[in-house]
Structure formats: C-alpha cells, structure tokens
C-alpha cells in the first residue's frame, strides 16, 4: 500500500498484489452478500404488500372466515389473536418482571442466578412447537378439549423468558450508586427496587414487553394443537378459538384462490403489527440508552 514500490523485488510485488487482489475480492463478496440479504428482505416486504393489499377491504375486518368459494374475512381470527396475545402477555409480564428482578437485584452473580439465567436462555430459544406439545399434555389433556386457554398458556410460556431477559438486562444497567443513595436514606430494599430501579428501567422493561407481544403475535406452531382453530366467531375462552397464524397456515396450504388471498391479507396484518411493534420498541429503548 504505502510501502515504496521501488524497494520491493518482483516476487514481493507479485505477492503484495495477490494479497491486495484477494482483499478486494473478499470486500466485494461481503458487499454482495449484504446487498443480497437486504434485497431479499425487500422482496419479502414487496410481495407481502402486493398480495396483501389486494385482500385488504372492509369485509376482511368485519366478517368471519368463510367456507371455500364464499365471501368472508378474518374478523374472528383477528379477534382471537388479539385476545390470546393480550391475556398471555398480561400473565407473562408480572412473572417475567419478578423473575428478572430476582436475577438483577437479589441473586446477581450467584450460582443460582447463573443457573436460572441459563435455563431461561434455553427456554428462550427452545423450539416453540415443543412448548405446544407441553401445553397439550398439561392443559388440553387436563381439560379434555382444545381451548383458547391452552393457547394462552403456550403463548405466555413463550413470552416469559423474553421479559425475564430484558428486565434483567435493563435493571443491571442501573448504576448501583442510585440504589445506594436510596438505601442511605433508609429506604427498604423493596421500595428501592420498585420506586428507584423500576422507574429508571421503565422504558427498557416496556421494550421487553413490546418485543414479547411482537414475538407472541406471530407464533403459529404452539397454537396448532392448543387453541386449534374455529371457523366461527367465538368469545368463549373454554373452546377452540380462531387466530391469525393458524388461519394463515390452513388457508395458504389450501388449493382455493380466495382462501389464499385471505392468507396473504392476514400475513400482511401480522407483519405490519410485528414490525411496527419492533420499531417502536427500538425507538423507545434507543432514547433511553444514549
């Protein structure tokens, strides 16, 4: 590069040239790879928009899933997804926040904390279909039938480790001097945690909850044999309930053109919701960290 070329004999020069050429080849290759992945992401979004927008019309939100060949929408599935996501995250949030608090505030670097952290990470990336099997074994067999409650249980089990992880991460970012300042005023530990740590980490914890909602709302595999599906409008949590992911799965795999179109519509809805949640979560946590 900046080595004076005159001092190099021809062999060395050839060697340097080969190194430089290899370097530029690798540079170009990595650029191409990055571009290819970004283009693929773009392609996914474009096809999703193109096919999904054709299905977006008022009836999509107002009518229930149709029999093949007749008109209909996804109202029951949208409702089911909203209800199951909301209840499961409402259950998972206190569990996750409390467990995260234990790790960050009490157990910290102890052996027990390391172990719980490890198990939590395993649970975080365990195949979601396995969680479906577990809930099937406990809730569905226990109750004797498929139900929305079983779906909620499966989704909550998926949400908990996400919330545990982010809560712990965010609480451990809080400087100990803040806690010590609280303690020096004679504040009991639990008040230090709830009034000082939680407040300081509030946005981060909220981010974790948003990410959990995003993750849970797109989960399909654990619902296949817990909440099952329901062709009709149902608000009964004790009965099988329609939900967007499973409806998308069934409709997309079907040979009927109008069902496939509805599947694209549902796919667009879910992706929009998930990406919007992710962007909001990222924005709120970014403002916090800097």
């Amino acid at each position: 590069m900046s080595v004076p070329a005159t001092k190099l004999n021809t062999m060395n020069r050839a060697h340097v040239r080969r190194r430089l050429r290899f370097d530029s080849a690798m540079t170009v290759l990595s650029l191409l790879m990055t571009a290819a992945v970004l283009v693929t992401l773009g392609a996914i979004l474009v096809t999703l928009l193109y096919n999904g927008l054709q299905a977006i019309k008022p009836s999509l939100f107002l009518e229930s899933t149709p029999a093949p060949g007749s008109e209909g929408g996804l109202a029951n599935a949208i409702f089911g997804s909203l209800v199951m996501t909301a209840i499961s995250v409402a259950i998972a949030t206190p569990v996750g926040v409390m467990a995260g608090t234990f790790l960050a505030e009490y157990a910290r670097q102890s052996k027990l904390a390391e172990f719980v952290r490890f198990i939590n990470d395993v649970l975080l990336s365990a195949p979601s279909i396995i969680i479906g099997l577990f809930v099937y074994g406990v809730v569905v067999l226990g109750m004797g039938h498929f139900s929305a409650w079983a779906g909620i249980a499966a989704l909550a089990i998926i949400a908990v480790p996400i919330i545990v992880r982010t809560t712990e991460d965010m609480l451990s970012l809080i400087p100990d001097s803040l806690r010590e300042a609280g303690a020096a005023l004679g504040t009991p530990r639990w008040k230090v945690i709830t009034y000082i740590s939680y407040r300081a980490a509030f946005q981060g914890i909220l981010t974790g909850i948003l990410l959990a909602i995003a993750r849970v709302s797109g989960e399909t595999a654990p619902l296949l044999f817990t909440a099952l599906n329901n062709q009709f409008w149902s608000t009964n949590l004790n009965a099988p309930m329609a939900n967007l992911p499973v409806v998308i799965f069934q409709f997309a795999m079907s040979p009927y053109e109008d069902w496939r179109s509805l599947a694209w519509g549902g796919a667009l809805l879910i992706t929009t919701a998930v990406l919007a949640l992710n962007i909001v979560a990222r924005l709120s946590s970014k403002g916090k960290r800097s």
Partner: protein
Amino acid sequence: MQDIKKTSSVMTDTPKSHRRSRGLNWGDPFFKSATFLFAMLVLTILSGIVIVLFIDAWPALKQFGPAFIWTSSWNPVKDSYGAFVPLVGTIETAVIAMVIGVPFSFGMAFFLTEMCPHWLRQPIAIAIELLAAVPSIIYGIWGLFVLVPICQKYVEPFLIATLGSVPILGHLFQGPPIGIGVFLAGIILALMILPFITSVMREVFAAVPAVLRESAYGLGATRWEVVWRVVLPYSRVGVVGAVMLGLGRALGETMAVTFVIGNAHRLSMSLLAPGTTISATLANEFTEADGELYTASLIALGLVLFILTFAVLAIGKRMLLRTSGKGGLA
C-alpha cells in the same frame, strides 16, 4: 456488587423500635420471596416440559426402545413408528442452512464491522434485526408462493444440469425439479437464522480490542487479513457460539419448513426430493393422530428434538459465556 449486599443487610438491621413504629419490615422478605418464587417458576416450566414429554412419550418409548431412533418406518396403519426419517431431515435441513447461512453471516458481519460507513451501520443493523423479527409463518408463505416457483424453474434445473453429473456429489442433486423439498427448506432456514448469527457475530467482532486491529493494520495487513487472521481467531469461541445458537434455531424451526418441505416420510439421497423434519411431522400429523401409540410416538419425536436442541443451545451458550467473561459486563 458486594457492597450493595452489605449495605442492604445494614439497612434491614434497623433498631427494633423503628421497625415496629414504621411497620416497614414485612415488605422486604415478602418481596424477595415473591421474586424468588417467580424465578423458580422458570425452572419449573423447563423441568415440567421434560417430565411431561417423557410421560406422554412413554408408551412409544416402552414399545420401541432405543431402536426408535434408527427405525425408518413410519406407518400409522401398522402402528409401527421410528424417528430416523424425520431426524435425518431435521439434521439435513439444518446443515444446508448452516452451509449457506454461516458464510453469509460472516460476510455481513465483516462488512458491518470493518467497512460500512458509520451513517449506514445503524440502518443496516436495524434492517437485519427486522428480518429476525418477521414471524416464521411469513417466511413459509413467501417461500411457498415466491421461492418455490423460482427454484422449480431456474435454480433446480441449473443444479441438476451442473452438479447432477459430478460423481458422488451428483447424487444429492438428482430427480425432477419440483421446487418443494429439503433443499428449499434449507435455504429458507438459512435466511431465517442469518440475522441471529450476524448480530451475535457483530457483537463478538466489535468486542475485539482496537489495539489488536490497529497493530495488524500497522504491520501492513490488508482488511481481509486483519479479520481472518486477527479478529476471527481472537473471537473464535464467540463465533462458534453464535453458529451453535443459529443451529439450535434451525433444528427447531417449524412453520417455514412445514410450508416448503413436502412432508414425505421417505429417505432420499437427493436434496431436491420432498422430505420431512421432526417439527414439520408434528405440525402436520399431531391433531390428526388417532391411537395412543401414534400420539405417543409423535411426542417421542418432540422429546428427541428437545434433547437435540437443548444440547446444541447449551454448548452455544457455554461458548458465548466464555467470551463475555473476558470483556466484563455482557
């Protein structure tokens, strides 16, 4: 860390008169044990999963014994089941995903940490993370309606024409180009695990001390040489950990694979033929399974998958922990 523990014990040891007059002290033990119980709940869930799967799979385990793993028949009519075909499919698709996904992840991490101008880094990183957030069913539906026709018309005929006639290797690329199959499932999995591996790799690359990089550059090393000979060896353990995490995901992924693999309980030498994985078999057959042994065999498949992913994830975590230990706070 130690200090806060001491302060807290001092804090709770306030004089008795204070305690009684303020009535403060019930809160601490209560709150602490509440958080403890919820943390234990996480452990309970995981052990619950293992126990429940084991109990529900017991009829199949008792009937077939360890031979379940290497038996290749899957016949609901004769009530004879073996995990071999889906297990091979699971490993096959995951390996394809790694072979394609790891070099791509490395290329992207290389680009992002070493060359990308600063203003572009954040947008690309966010785009990659969004790719990770897209639900797997979207990859499935996209793969089925977009990638399958492309593969069928262009990619697979090309592979069959070129690689199909190579001695030994050619066996992997034979048969009719139908799009749906193990190969396409592997490609979709590669796309799905890419963002995970890339972002972890980026983190471990960024954790390499700048002095190391600068000294290599100072000796006249090219950018590629710095990454390949200095950054990569230094962060080796973390990179392997990242790859293991990706592998764990690829093994357990369900929906995207179910859409495009074709769900055929058949062993085939060709990667272009339809096959099945453990998770795809579960997704397709579980609700339709009648008979105790059928259901139990499916759950036993799930148990095999769980043990497999648990082992891979545990190894990956271990390796990542070792690297983060070097750099202090994770």
